[in-house]
Each structure stands twice: as C-alpha cells, then as structure tokens.
C-alpha cells in the first residue's frame, strides 16, 4: 500500500499540476523552463558547500577515525539494531544542512542506494530540518536573542524524526 502510494504520488502530482495548468491556459513550456532554470541555479549554488563537506566526511571515514569513534558504541547499537554508520548523521542533522547532505551522500555511495542503511539514512535526512539554521535565520532577522522553548521544541522534533526513521526502516526494510 505504502509502496504503491510512494510510486504514484510524484507522477500523480505532476499529472494533476500539468493538466490544471493546461486547463487554465498557462503557457506550459515557457513556464516550466523558467522554473527549471532556478533549479539549475540552486544546484550550482549548493555544489561548493556539498563538496567541502564531503571532503571532510570522506577523510573522516577513510582515515578510520569514524570507525574508531563508533566502534565503542557498536555493541550497544547493534543490540538495538542500529547501524553505527547512522550515528554521525543523527548527530549532524540539527546543526548543518550541507553536513547532513554530505554524510547521507557518503552512506549512499559507500553502501549502495538500495541498501537498508541508505534508505534508513534517507528517512533520517528527509524527516527534519536543520533546527539551528532555521532558528538563527528567523530569530536573527528580527533581532530576538532569547529563543525560549523554540530550541527544545525543534530538538524534540529532530529526535522524533530520527527515532521514527529507525522504527519505520525496521518495519519496512529489515
């Protein structure tokens, strides 16, 4: 059921939007191209941040430092059925968007895009936002310095996202 919905959602959405656009006589081709241009610009803008983070992540893994740090936790984690490779991602999630994207990409590159590990990491990455970034941008914009319970609420959401991603992945792909 979930699989059918997942597979259908994107094509359905595109179909409905294009059909509605045609019905409303929107110039489909030129409008699409105008939007697509901003997509290309976005990718180019993200590139340096992603590469810079990936370089550190690649070194972190290849040097053995990551294993050194996660090996200690491995017995505890494997008892709970959690892959140690996911720990850096979980820790990074709330702090840096490019760091998260880099760690996620590295997991997919290392373990394969169809591995349960990659799909679990995908849920973790997609289930939340970079809490501290969001807070600093929006509070910063109006000069609020006392964040009160916004931090705890944001972190509670992040933690829920991480835990539920693990649970959901266990249910679906193990």
């Amino acid at each position, binding site marked *: 059921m979930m699989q059918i919905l*997942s597979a259908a959602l994107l094509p359905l959405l595109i179909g409905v939007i294009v059909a509605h656009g045609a019905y409303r006589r929107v110039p489909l081709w030129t409008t699409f191209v105008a*939007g697509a241009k901003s997509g290309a610009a976005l990718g180019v803008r993200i590139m340096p941040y992603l590469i810079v983070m990936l370089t550190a992540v690649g070194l972190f893994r*290849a040097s053995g430092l990551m294993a050194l740090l996660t090996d200690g936790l491995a017995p505890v984690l494997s008892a709970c059925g959690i892959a140690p490779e996911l720990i850096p991602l979980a820790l990074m999630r709330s702090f840096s968007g490019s760091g998260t994207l880099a760690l996620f990409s*590295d997991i997919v590159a290392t373990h394969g895009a169809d591995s349960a590990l990659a799909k679990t990491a995908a849920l973790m990455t997609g289930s939340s936002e970079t809490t501290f970034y969001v807070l600093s941008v929006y509070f910063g914009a109006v000069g609020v310095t006392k964040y009160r319970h916004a931090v705890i609420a944001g972190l509670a959401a992040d933690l829920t996202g991480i835990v539920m991603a693990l649970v959901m992945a266990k249910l*679906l792909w193990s």
Partner: protein
Amino acid sequence: MPYTGRNMRLFWAILIGLSVLTAALRGQTGEVMPAVIGSLWTGARVIVSLIGVMCLWLGVMKIAEASGLTRFFARMLRPLVHFLFPELRGNTPAQAAITMNISANALGLGNAATPFGVQAMKELQAVNPRPKTATDAMCTFLAINTAGVQLIPTGVVAVLVSFGSDNPTEIIVPCLIVTALAQVVGVSTAKLLQRRRRK
C-alpha cells in the same frame, strides 16, 4: 539550502585535521587521496542528479504557481494556521505570511519559503512586548519550520537517484509519515511548554 555556521566551520577544520592525523598515526596516509577523490566524485554525481530533480520539480511548481494551484494549497492550510495560532485572531498579515511560509515549505520551495518566514517573524515581532525575547507564537511557528514537512523530499530522492537506486521514490510516503510525526511532537512540545510558563 545548506548552511554552515561559525561553529560548523571550525568543526569542519578540526574534522579534517583529526582525520589526517588518524590516518598518519595508523600508517594509512595512502588512504587520504583516494578518499578525497572519491568524495569529489560523490559530490559531482549528487549535484548532477540534484540539478535534474530540482529542474523537474521547480519547473512543475512554476506551472502550479501560474495556474493558481499553490494559492489553492495555501488556502487549504488556513484553518490549520487559525487552529495553531489562536492568539493571532485579527492579525491577518501575520496569518497570511505564516500560511504562505508553511505552504512553500511543504511544496519544497525553500527559496520562496524563507522571505515569507521572515515576513511572518516581522509581523509577530511588531506585537511583541519584549523585542529581545521570543513570543509563544514565534516558538510555535519555528517549531513548525524546524520539523519541516515536505510533500516530496526532493534532495533525498536526488541523492538516491544519483547512485542508481532501483526505486528512489519508495521513501516518499514513509518519509512523509515520519516527518508528520516529528511535526506533531515539535508543535506539541512548543504548546506544552508555553502553557507551563504562563501559569
């Protein structure tokens, strides 16, 4: 849009330093260059795929915007905003900005969402008796933003596509469920903490 704060930049430098040091101590300096080159390839592949996915998505969303569908979607969110921000009854500009921000985020239009979000914060700040301190409404609003419900997690799909996933859209619905739960917990936490403070 990936963002890197000052602490993260420092962390990045330390991570590289410690990694190279570890490689040296373990006599694995030979691993360093292949790792960097591997990372460059990963980055290039992900970006190519990301550009593809974002072109498709933002192209389609531009049509939705021109045909009025995105406005319709935002209208559907209005009752939810009324429900979550009872204190903003009568404050139409704040409600409108919040609605547009949530709607743009849900549709994966991060670039469009931020200006609306900043606008919403300015409207909330205008009725803030203590300008340095966050109000309850601000905390709720940012709880929604930090949990971030996205209809299609385009970035994640793009990474899976870049490494040849057989079924890169498989994660869409599970992801939606997880993020919705995170959203509920985030907003509930914000609401619970504000009530306790008021007593």
